[in-house]
Each structure stands twice: as structure tokens, then as C-alpha cells.
């Protein structure tokens, strides 16, 4: 009798334990498994935009898109690990040029054709190159935007500091920074805590010092090196700007630095057009102007650094190929690109898109006459160590005085020459 009662109690307890596990698991399953594709990105700040676009896509096609952003600093590792493990999303944002070379060469992406994505036929060849493979030259990504570097400024703060005309030369730029500082305003919001930001700052101000497109062609061909005195001068220009960084700039993270400009504490921010959407998300009423980086002296050329920022790619192992291609065409559509231009400040890669942000219009107009490639990103990220992996922490040391511009140049040359054949054996 006693044993029977124990058995019954045990049975009831087991049933309850099983139900406690099974019921929530069953409830968590969707009632109907509709077609769903996963989409990853490194832009958590654009989540609201992509989710709204995903809702439009679902309304039109019935295909749901699960958008998952990851912090930019971790995205490369997360994506590479997932793809190598044979998983990963159906559609994803990919880095351009060398940033994707290892992944594309390993066969992780579906090669896109103009039959699958007709919009590819209308994108310039130079832009398409940003999302082609390195050893396998197939088109693996749809380049979505051209990114542009330059100097963003707050016209209201400049007026407050008594600056009537925008600086066009290095000397006048430094004078303007001094004037802003004297007015009790932070001259630059940039800090050295975010290492990629330092490379982007150099990318904006450097070309006028090293010689723009001519130098790019020469160094890619191996006729010039990173220890060229003009290249060193471009690194030194960054060091000269450190005096205008906020106090404690070594620890200034990316968002706090951008926040200083967005919240109208700093008059200038040197960076890319992709910062504008973040500035506006923090301060919708922010008045932002844009100008190319100043020329090194009067009469010299002002350059506008630009490159294919990234692309959208399809996982070669996706089980939802048709749905992924449909989504890819949606991402290549004028409707999506227009929305991205309006909301995110993109300079889209397809034509016929009306850009309305005045700062972005300035950038778009400047590219044809003054464009130059982002040298380290476009040319030297295909092997290891990349020029960027040396330059980024190197600039942090230059900013604190722990390394000179000359030593940084030598370190970049040594590192890149170890794998880039045209520069091998050259000091």
C-alpha cells in the first residue's frame, strides 16, 4: 500500500517535471513555420530602419526577415565563426575588399549574377570590385553604399567662435581649431580610444600630404613605399591634430566621441558620412555641414576619400536560396536605396536616388572631381598583417607619444612587405 502510494507520487512528480519542460517549449514554437530568412549586420544603430524595411518586404512577399545586428567590434569574429561552422545567416552585411577576402575565398558566399540580381549590371565596375573575391573574382556581394570621409562641422558653433569662412588649407584649419578652442568649445570630437576611427581620420586628412591617386597607383605597383617622406608627413598630420582632441581622448570610445559632436559640444568631427545617421539619432535637430579635408597648402588639391563601404551577400549554404535572392533584389531596389539615403545618410551605389541631406549632397558632388581611394582599406587588407592592423594601434601610440610617425611608417612597411609581393624586400 505504502509502495503503491510512493509509486503514484513518483509518477505524478515525473509527469509534472516533463510538463514543465515540454509545455513552454511547445508554446515557444510558432504556430505556422512561414518562410523566414535571417539577416545579420554590424549596425545595431540602424535596427529600427532595417526592421521597418523587413516589415515592408514581408508585406509584399510574405517572407519574414529576422534582422540581428551585432556590435561592429565583434561582427567579423561572429560572422567568420558562424560561417566556418557551416551556419551563419541567409543574408548578411559583408565588409568590402580585404575584409571579406578570406571569407569569400573559403566559399562562404553565393556568387551573384546579373540574372539573379539585375541591379548589379548598373553599378560601376570600380564599385563592384569592392565586393568581389580576391583569388576567385566572382561577384559575391551587392555593394550598397559609397562611403566618404571628410570633415563634418557644426555651423552654429563655428559662428559662435567667430569663424566666418570655412578653412581650405591646413594652416587655416589649425587656426580655426585654435579659435574654436579659445572660444571655450571643443575643437574636435574625435578621440584616439577608437582605433579604427584614427585610421579613418588619417584617411580623410592624409591624401593631400602623400599625393592622393598618384601615390596610390605608385605604392600599389611597388614603386613607392610606406616610408616615403610624404606618407610619413600624412601620419604626422594626424599627430598634429591630437592637440585638439578632448582631454582623456585615449579612453574616448566611439559612441562617446560621436556623442560630443552630436550633442554640440565639439565643433568638428573628422569621419565618414555613415556617422550622420548616428548624430541625428542622438540629436535630430543637429545642424551638420561637411567639407573636404583641407589641402596641405594653398594651391594644392583637396581630396575626398571614398570607397565601396560594404555589401550584402548570400550564404552559400542557405536553405532559403530563392527567398534570399528575392530579398537581395529588394535590397537593390530603388525604394530601399532611397529609404536608406533618406534615413541613414547613405550614398547609394545605384543611380536615380535622390539624396536630400545637405551634407551628403556636398559629399556626392565632390567625389567625381576629387575622389581618391581609402588607401589602406582598398589596397592593403588582403594579407596579414593588414596595413590597418598595424596602423590602428600604431596611431594610438603616436597619439600618446609612445611612437613616432616615422616608426609607424616603418612598422607598416615591414608588416605589409611580408606578404605584398610588389613591396617585398623594400624598406
Amino acid at each position: 500500500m505504502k509502495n503503491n502510494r510512493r509509486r503514484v507520487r513518483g509518477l505524478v512528480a515525473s509527469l509534472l517535471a516533463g510538463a514543465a519542460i515540454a509545455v513552454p517549449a511547445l508554446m515557444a514554437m510558432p504556430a505556422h513555420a512561414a518562410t523566414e530568412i535571417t539577416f545579420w549586420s554590424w549596425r545595431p544603430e540602424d535596427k529600427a530602419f532595417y526592421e521597418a524595411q523587413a516589415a515592408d518586404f514581408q508585406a509584399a512577399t510574405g517572407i519574414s526577415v529576422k534582422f540581428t545586428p551585432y556590435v561592429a567590434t565583434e561582427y567579423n569574429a561572429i560572422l567568420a565563426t558562424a560561417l566556418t561552422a557551416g551556419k551563419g545567416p541567409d543574408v548578411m552585411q559583408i565588409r568590402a575588399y580585404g575584409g571579406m577576402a578570406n571569407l569569400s575565398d573559403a566559399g562562404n558566399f553565393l556568387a551573384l549574377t546579373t540574372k539573379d540580381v539585375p541591379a548589379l549590371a548598373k553599378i560601376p565596375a570600380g564599385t563592384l570590385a569592392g565586393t568581389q573575391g580576391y583569388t576567385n573574382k566572382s561577384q559575391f556581394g551587392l555593394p550598397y553604399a559609397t562611403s566618404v570621409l571628410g570633415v563634418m562641422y557644426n555651423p552654429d558653433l563655428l559662428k559662435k567662435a567667430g569663424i566666418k569662412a570655412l578653412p581650405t588649407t591646413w594652416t587655416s584649419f589649425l587656426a580655426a581649431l585654435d579659435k574654436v578652442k579659445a572660444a571655450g568649445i571643443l575643437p574636435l570630437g574625435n578621440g584616439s580610444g577608437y582605433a579604427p576611427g584614427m585610421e579613418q581620420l588619417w584617411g580623410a586628412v592624409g591624401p593631400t600630404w602623400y599625393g592622393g591617386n598618384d601615390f596610390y597607383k605608385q605604392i600599389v605597383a611597388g614603386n613607392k613605399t610606406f616610408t616615403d617622406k610624404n606618407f610619413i608627413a600624412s601620419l604626422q598630420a594626424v599627430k598634429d591634430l591630437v592637440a585638439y582632441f578632448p582631454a582623456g581622448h585615449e579612453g574616448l570610445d566611439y559612441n562617446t566621441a560621436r556623442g560630443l559632436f552630436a550633442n554640440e559640444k565639439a565643433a568638428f568631427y573628422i569621419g565618414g558620412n555613415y556617422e550622420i545617421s548616428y548624430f541625428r539619432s542622438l540629436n535630430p535637430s543637429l545642424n551638420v555641414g561637411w567639407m573636404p579635408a583641407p589641402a596641405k597648402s594653398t594651391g594644392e588639391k583637396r581630396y575626398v576619400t571614398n570607397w565601396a563601404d560594404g555589401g550584402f551577400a548570400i550564404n552559400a549554404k542557405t536553405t532559403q536560396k530563392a527567398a534570399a535572392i528575392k530579398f537581395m533584389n529588394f535590397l537593390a531596389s530603388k525604394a530601399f536605396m532611397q529609404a536608406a539615403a533618406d534615413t541613414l545618410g547613405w550614398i547609394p551605389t545605384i543611380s536615380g536616388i535622390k539624396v536630400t541631406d545637405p551634407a551628403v549632397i556636398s559629399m556626392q558632388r565632390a567625389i567625381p572631381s576629387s575622389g581618391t581611394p581609402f588607401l589602406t582599406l582598398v589596397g592593403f587588407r588582403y594579407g596579414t598583417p593588414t596595413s590597418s592592423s598595424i596602423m590602428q594601434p600604431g596611431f594610438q601610440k603616436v597619439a600618446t607619444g609612445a611612437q613616432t610617425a616615422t616608426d609607424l611608417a616603418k612598422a607598416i612597411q615591414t608588416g605589409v612587405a611580408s606578404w605584398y609581393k610588389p613591396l617585398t624586400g623594400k624598406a
Partner: protein
Amino acid sequence: MARAGIKREQNKYAALLLTPALAVIIIFTSIPALTTLSYAFFRWKGFQRLGFAGIENFQRLFNDPFKSYFYMALRHNVLVFIAILVIQTSLGILVGYALFKLKRGHRYFRTVVFLPVIFSLVIVAYMWQAMLDPFYGPVNYLLHSIHWDGLAKTWLGSTSTALPTLVFINLWRWVGFPAIIFLAGFNSINTEFIEAARIDGASEGQIFRKILLPLLAPSMTIVTILTFIGAFEWFDLPYVLGGTNGNPAGAIDTLALMFYRLSFGSVDSGANEIGVGSALGVLIFTIVGVGATFGSRYLRSREVEA
């Protein structure tokens, strides 16, 4: 005969109960460790394994451009170990002793002391980052308001103060752990020794120095070895506060952070170096394994038998 049978039965059950734990250790510790060891002897392109490389990856680790980062990270790990061992352990002993001597409110104070240990590390890091923010943080605001402007530094932003600040944050979070271990050590000491010493006229200070501290040696061994392992595998706090590069300018870069950066790459600079990263992983494993083994043996040999 019957005893042998019971022993066999007990051994069988012991083996059965140990199997799940052993399986977890083998799957999640031994296999990854052996796999990493093997990765260090191959060439890699991204995540693609290429040909056999011998000791090439170890040689590359000790040459440019990795050499300077390696020695800087190693220096930081050594400094952190010394700082934590001296400051955190000393504080742990004092707090443990204070808890030992408490006549009332034991549970309350033990909970308060141990509470930071159970906080999520990420929350602790972000909390201190917000508190020490040079522009918006309350610490600098308070210091400015009481006119101690000289102390209102960019603690996490300056290359000279970033590492000590991290040691302080680590101390804030972890001091409760050695304190509880030492409290257990104090409680395990036979009270007859203390009473006999009091009868002989020893002061509290003498009792602490001559009786309690020597008999605390087993607890000291545990804390020292755990501190050594923790210091040379330090990753979480530097990663959360300094990113993969150990900002500012590598001032809080550690061997484990360098391992992560080499293995998975860092934002924008794209490429990773799994071979060199694995070689570094093997080196870290060797340092920790050898150091913990020999350190443990040496410290145990010096323990006083009660």
C-alpha cells in the same frame, strides 16, 4: 571478502557518478586544448587550414609585428598578478579577519562583502565605466565639487592610470572571494591554540601574526594559485573596458586579449592569425600550467602543520 565486494560496488558507483563531469571536462576543456595545440603547427588563411608549418607560428610570435605586443601584454599580466596578490590578498585577509572577529551581524556582513563577486562582470565593468566617465561620470563631478580637481583624472582614458584603475575595479569586485576563503581558514583553526596564547598573555596582534597567519597557509596557497591563474588568463575586464586592442593604446592589453585578437581579428582591420594566436594560446597554457604546478608544490611544502 564481503568488504572487497562492497569496495568494488562503491568504486563502481563512484566511477558512474564521475563520468558526466569527466565527459564535460574532456569535451569542453581537453579536446579544445589539444585542438588549439595542433592549430599552432599549421599555416592558416583566415579560418582555412593550409599546410604544416612546424614551429613557424611560435617564431612569428617572437618577431615583428607581434613581438612588441606580446612583451607588453606579458608585462601587464605580471604587474596585475603582483598587484592583485599583494593588495587584494592583503585586503582579503584583513576583511576575513574582521568577519572572523565580528560578534554580531555575521550573515549580513558576509553577504555584503561577497555581493560584488556574484554581480555580472559586464555590469560591473559598465557601471565603473559610467562612474569614471571624464565628461558625465559622478566620480569626477564629486571631485570637482569638493575642489579636488587634481584627482579628477581620465582614469580609464590615460595610459598611465588605465591598468591601475582596472586593478582597482577587479579588487572591488573580487576582494570578497579571498575574504570568504580566509574566513573559512580562520574558522578552521583550533580555538585551543588561541585560548592557550591568550592565557600566556599574547596580544591580539601577536595571536594574529604568530598563530593565525601561519595556520592560514593552506588558504593562502589556494588564493595565490587562483590569483596566478586568474591574472595570466585575465580577459573579461580588459575586453569590456578596452576592446580587443586593450585601449587606451594597448595600456590594458593582456595575453588572453592578444590571443582573442589574433584568433578572431579586430574590427575593420579584418584578417586574423589563427596560427600565431594558437601558438600564443599554447604559451599561455604552459605558463599557467607550469606556474600553478610548481607554485602549488612550493607553497604546500611551506604550510605549517597544526
